[in-house]
């Protein structure tokens, strides 16, 4: 869901939230650690924050422009689905 917020009445930042359920907290954490290390390709205009709470991976984006936000979200979803396919094919995680 994307919403607009005014800051100091002059700048408008776009936000996007995503919550992804996983079968376990362990798998949500694995996804987090696979998806967070790489920097955004564009240095400016976008920031992304990942967090795990229970079995849910939540992601929060803040961007200056809709186009940049779309590209980042789209790219993230591609990588997320790749992580999930990898987990399906090569999981479940070994017991620690």
């Amino acid at each position, binding site marked *: 869901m994307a919403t607009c917020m005014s800051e100091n009445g002059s700048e408008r930042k776009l936000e996007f939230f995503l919550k992804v359920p996983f079968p376990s907290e362990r798998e949500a954490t*694995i*996804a987090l*650690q*696979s*998806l*967070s*290390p*790489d*920097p955004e*390709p564009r240095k400016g205009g976008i920031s992304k924050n990942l967090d795990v709470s229970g079995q849910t991976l939540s992601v929060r984006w803040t961007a200056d422009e809709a186009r940049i936000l779309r590209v980042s979200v789209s790219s993230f979803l*591609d*990588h997320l689905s*790749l*992580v999930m*396919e*990898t*987990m399906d*094919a*090569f*999981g*479940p*995680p*070994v017991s*620690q």
Partner: protein
Amino acid sequence: MTVVIGFEGSANKIGVGIIRDGEVLSNPRRTYITPPGQGFLPGETAKHHRSVILTVLQEALDEAGLKSADIDCVAYTKGPGMGAPLVTVAVVARTVAQLWGKPLLGVNHCIGHIEMGRLITNAQNPTVLYVIAYSERRYRIFGETIDIAVGNCLDRFARVIKISNDPSPGYNIEQMAKKGTKFIELPYTVKGMDVSFSGILSYIEETLFAMLVEITERAMAHCGSQEVLIVGGVGCNMRLQEMMGVMCKERGARIFATDESFCIDNGAMIAQAGWEMFRSGHVTELLDSWITQRYRTDEVEVTWRD
């Protein structure tokens, strides 16, 4: 016994290889080939890798006859290379490392080439083309291109004259060059230890390779080296090997090169560099496992050689 799996996908080849103590157990690979006149772009290349990587990974395990429990370490290409394909491959490597509970290792692509070359050829302390010599725990860059890489130059030349990219543009240039009879003198740009390839996109192999032979010879003279190891995709080229061989013979030096399974980008070379690094105590924490498009060969501390 140490078994390392390596993931490589920094350009248009995606490969997964498994090495056990110097033995290549499997090394499957796929190449993203574009139509003549077209180069490969990051987004499309990443899409290609994404569509085949899990299949290639399963192939690597099956051909090696191993299960994930048999793997000791997961190595992947940290850089240099194209951003989008690097990320695609890194994401899978990080995921399986965590699923299998194994340590992760980010490898420099060029060091992968060097370590594979050393393993296959058994060269002791060679001067390596791309003009590199080992000294005091670093692969020292003796000379380099000041603009584009020789492989990139050959690929772009092939694109301009619309040579097929199947199996690779460089291979097709080489086949056509074999039938050539007329040598045209073109700008030959060596600046001290370095070379420049961008000025001449209408060149012929002879000139490019002669430049490389010259700077390799200079590096050997500086280091007192009696061995040359050629690595990287352009290393497959028999004419380059031949020209380098002539120079080596004149100096009483030995030339080493590998076949196309190993000079072209592949997963096993990442596994081999990973094997060396893992055994000398390197590990990459997940937080530090970000990929990078620029990654110089001399940035890595080579703790596995003395």
